[in-house]
C-alpha cells in the first residue's frame, strides 16, 4: 500500500489537483451547481423537508397571532350574542313580568313584542298595572299602531320600560319601582306557600269561616269592592282554610291572600281588593266600628307607593 504523502512543492500541488480524481470531484461539484441553478434541487429538498415537518412547528408569527385574536374575538362576540339570545328567549317565554325581571342583571335588558307586553300587563295585579301605565293610555298607543316593541331594562332601583315604535324611538317610558317589583315577585312566589311565609300578612290572617261570615255581612257594593272577581275563587279546587289581608296598599288596592288546602298541600291565591272595602272588612273582623263610605281608608299612607 502506497503511503499517503503531502505534495512537496507547487508543481506537485498542481499535478495532484489536475489529476483524474481531482477533475472528477470538480466536475461533480460543477454539475451539482449547474443542476442547482437550473433545477433548484436544494430549494426543493429544503422545501420538501420543511413541508414534512410543518405540523411539528409552532403556530407563531403575525398570521397566527391574528388568527388567535380573531378566534378569541369571535368567541367573545359569540358569548355576547348567545347571552342576549338567552335573555330574549327567556323574555319571550315568560308568563309574567317578575320572571323577566328576576333573570336580568342590572343594566341588562330584554326586548318584547308589543303584544307580549300587553299579555304580561293583563296578568299583573290591577293596581300595580294601573300604577305603571294607565290601561287607557296603553289602549291609545296600541290603537295608534306605532307601538311595535317594548324594551325592559333592569336598573339598580327598579325596571325601566320603554314602549318603542319601529325605529326605536321611545313613545312612552316609565319606571316600575323596586317596591312594586317586590310585590310582583311575592305574587309569583305565593303559589306554593302558606300565608305566614308571605311578607305583609302577619297579624292579619283569619280563619276562612270568619272571613266569609264578615264578608256576608257587608253590603253588595262592599263585597264587590273586596272581591271583584269571586269567580276566580269558585274555580279553585280544594278548600279555602285561611284568608290574609296585606298591610300594603298600592294604587288603591290591597292584596288578599286565600290559603287553599288540597290534601296535605297548601297554596295561596292572591287577589286584590279595593282598599276602602278591605278596611271595612278588617274593622268587622277586629270588632271595630267601621267608618262609613268608600274612599276613606286608614290603610292609605301606611305604605305609600
Amino acid at each position, binding site marked *: 500500500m502506497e503511503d499517503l504523502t503531502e505534495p512537496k512543492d507547487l508543481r506537485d500541488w498542481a499535478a495532484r489537483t489536475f489529476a483524474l480524481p481531482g477533475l472528477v470531484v470538480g466536475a461533480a461539484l460543477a454539475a451539482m451547481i449547474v443542476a442547482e441553478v437550473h433545477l433548484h434541487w436544494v430549494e426543493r429538498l429544503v*422545501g420538501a423537508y420543511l413541508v414534512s415537518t410543518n405540523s411539528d412547528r409552532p403556530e407563531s*408569527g403575525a398570521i397566527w397571532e391574528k388568527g388567535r385574536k380573531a378566534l378569541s374575538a369571535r368567541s367573545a362576540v359569540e358569548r355576547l350574542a348567545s347571552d342576549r339570545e338567552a335573555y330574549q328567549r327567556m323574555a319571550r317565554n315568560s308568563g309574567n313580568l317578575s320572571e323577566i325581571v328576576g333573570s336580568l342583571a342590572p343594566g341588562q335588558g330584554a326586548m318584547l313584542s308589543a303584544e307580549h307586553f300587553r299579555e304580561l300587563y293583563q296578568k299583573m295585579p290591577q293596581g300595580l298595572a294601573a300604577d305603571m301605565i294607565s290601561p287607557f293610555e296603553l289602549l291609545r298607543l296600541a290603537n295608534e299602531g306605532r307601538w311595535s316593541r317594548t324594551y325592559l331594562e333592569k336598573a339598580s332601583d327598579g325596571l325601566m320600560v320603554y314602549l318603542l315604535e319601529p325605529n326605536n324611538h321611545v313613545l312612552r317610558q316609565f319606571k316600575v319601582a323596586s317596591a312594586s317589583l317586590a310585590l310582583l315577585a311575592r305574587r309569583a312566589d305565593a303559589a306554593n306557600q302558606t300565608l305566614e311565609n308571605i311578607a305583609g300578612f302577619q297579624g292579619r290572617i283569619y280563619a276562612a269561616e270568619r272571613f266569609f261570615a264578615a264578608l256576608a255581612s257587608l253590603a253588595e257594593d262592599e263585597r264587590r269592592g273586596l272581591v271583584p272577581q269571586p269567580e276566580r275563587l269558585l274555580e279553585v279546587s280544594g278548600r279555602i282554610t285561611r284568608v290574609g289581608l296585606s298591610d300594603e296598599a298600592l294604587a288603591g288596592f290591597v292584596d288578599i291572600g286565600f290559603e287553599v288546602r288540597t290534601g296535605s298541600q297548601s297554596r295561596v291565591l292572591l287577589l286584590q281588593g279595593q282598599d276602602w272595602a278591605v278596611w271595612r272588612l278588617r274593622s268587622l273582623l277586629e270588632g271595630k266600628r267601621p267608618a262609613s263610605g268608600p274612599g276613606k281608608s286608614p290603610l292609605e299612607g301606611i305604605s305609600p307607593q
Partner: protein
Amino acid sequence: MTAWLRRLRIAFYLGLLLLGLAVAGLWIFFFVTLRDLPQVPEPLSRIIETPPTEIYAASGERIMLIGGREAVALNRVSPFFIQAVIATEDHRFWDHRGIDKLRLVKAFWVNLLRTGRVEGASTITQQLAKNLFFTFQRTYQRKLRELLVALQIEARYSKNEILEAYLNQIAFGVGAHGVEQASQVFFGKPALQLNLAEAALLAGLPKSPTRYNPFRNFERAKERQKVVLSRMAAVGSITTEEAALARQARLNLRPPGRTEPAGSYFLDLVLKDLEERYGTDVVHHAGLKVFTTFDPQLQAWAAESVQSGLERLDQILKIPAAAGGDPNAHPQAALVAIEAHSGAVRALIGGRDYGETEYNRAVQSNRLPGSGFKPFLYYAAFEKTGLHPASVFVDRKVTIPIPGQPPWAPRNFSGDYDGPMILKRALSHSVNSIAAQLVERTGVPPVIDAARRCGIKSPLARVPSVALGTSGVSPLEMASAFATLATGGIQHDPFWIRRVEDSAGRILEERIMSSRRALDASIAFQVVDMLRAVLDEGTGNVIRQLGFHLPAAGKTGTTDEFNDAWFTGFTPTLSVSVWVGFDRGMSLRDPQGRGITGGRGAAPIWAEFMRKATEGEPQREFAVPSDIRFVQVLPTTGQPALPWGPRGVEVALRASQVPSLAPFSGGREPSPTGGGQ
C-alpha cells in the same frame, strides 16, 4: 520546502478547517432556526378568512371595512396588474423556487461594494412569507427564516396560489389592503378592470405607500408608474410603445374626498366608542356589523362648507396656501350636525384635513364658547327669577363683586353701552353687561344646572363669567345642548351607533332613543324665540344675508382674544354647531388687526351647510306651547307697542306674563298651524 510553500500549506489547511466549521455552523444554525420556524397555515387562503368589521351609514351604504380582506381570485385581477407586479417585484417569479439566486448574488455584490446603497433581492414568495409571519426588523436570522418559509411555501403551493395570496394581502396605503380594495379606493373600479396605466400606478405603490400616495404626491406616483412601465417593457411584458402610451394616459383617480373612508373623523369616533365597549380585538377581528347614524350626503355638504369657509378665512387672514403642511399655520374648524328629535349625529367634521391631523376637534377639543353659552343663562334667569323676554335691563358699565377675588367687569364687544333694552334685544345683540347683571341676579348654580340639563357635560367653573362662556365645551356638546332647545326642552343624548350585529346578523345591541324633559317647554320656547332674533336682526344676521331663510334660531360666540369663533343654531329638526380657531391659542385677526367673530368666521359655514342640508325641505316652524302669547313691545321700555306709535319688537310671553304689561297687551294667540311669527 520553501517558506512560502509552507505558509501556503498552512493557509490551505486553515481554510479547509474554516470551511468545515462554517458548514457545521450553518448546519447547526439551520436546525436551530428550524426549531422555532413558524408553521405555515393550510390552506394559504386562511390569511383572508377573518371577516371584516363593516360600518354602515344610516342609508345602508357601507362606509368602512376594518380588518379582513376583500379577496379576489387571480382570474378576477387585471392581467396588466399581475404583469406589472411581477416585472417590478420579482421578474423571475415563474422560474425560481422561492429564491432568485442571480438577484441574490447581484444584491450581495452591490451591497458589499457600493457603500450606502442597499439592494434587496426578496422574491414575491419571500415578501409573502415576511408579511405573514415576521416583523419588519432587519436581522440576518429573520432573513434566513423568511427564506426558509418561502422555500416551504414554494414546495407546498402552486405559483398561482402564491401570487393570489400575495396580491390579496399587499398594502397599498390609505388603508387599502389587497388589490381589489386598492383598485376601489384609488380608481373606484374592480381590480379586473384596471387598464395598463392604472395597473402600473398601483403596482408601484407597495414599495412605499406613503411616499407614492397619488392623492398626496401625484407627481411622485407618476414617476414611479414610469419606472414600473419601463420594467414591464424591459422584461417583455409590454412593448415600449405600449409603455409610452400608458405613460401619457390620463389617470382617473377617484376624487380625493371619496378616497379616505368617508367622514373619517366620524368613523374615528365610532371606532373609539366600539373599542371602549367591545375591546380592540373584537372590533378588528370579530367581523361586526355596525349601523351608524352617519348621513353621507350631509357629511359631504359639511365637508364642502367647512372647506370653503376655511379657504375664505385664509383669504381674510392673508394666510398663503404655501403655508400648507404645518397644521398650526391655518385655522381649523369643526362642525357637528345632530338630529334634534333623536340625538343622532348625522355629520361630523373634526378638522381641516383628517390626513393632516387626526385630532378630532368636534369631540376632543374643549374651547371657550363665549356668548354661545348665553342661552343657558337666559333660560336659568327666566326659570328662577320670573324674568321674561320683555323685561328691561340697562346696558351700562357693570362691576360684579366676587368674594375673595377682584371684581368682575365684563365689557361689551362693541365697547359701547346702549342704555335700557328688553332682554330679547340684549340676547340677540349679545350684550355682555346685561348678561352679567342677569347672572348676578340668577346666581351661578342655576346657569350651570340649565346647561347640564341641556346636555353640557364638560367641567364648568362655578364663577359668574361661566355665563359668558369661560369654560370650555366641545362642538358636539353645543350642538346637542341646543338641540334640547330645538325640541322645546326634550333632551336626547347624542349618539352615533344605532345597532351592532355579529357577522351572522345577530343583534348585540341596539340604541333605544329615549329622552327626558329637561326644560320647561314654554320657557325653552321663549329662549328659542329670542334666538330666532339673533339670525333675523342680531349678531347672526349674516345667515339671512347668505340666503338661508327657513325658520331657525342660533347664537354666535366669540372669545375675548378672538381665539374662538362659534355659531350654534338649529331648525326644528337639525341642530348644528360650528367652531373655528387655531389649534394653538392664536388669535383670529386679519392683517389690520380686526378680530374674526363668530358671525364672520363660523356663521357663514353654518349658513352654507344648512342651505344645502335643508334644500327642498318644507318650512317647519318651532312648536309653540299653548300658553305662549306673542306681544309687540317697545324695545327700550318693554311696554306694549301702540298701533299708532313706534314700531315694536315681537316677544313670546307666557299667558301669565301678559297682564303685567299694562296698559295694552296686544297679545296674540299662537296660530293654529303652530306658526310662531
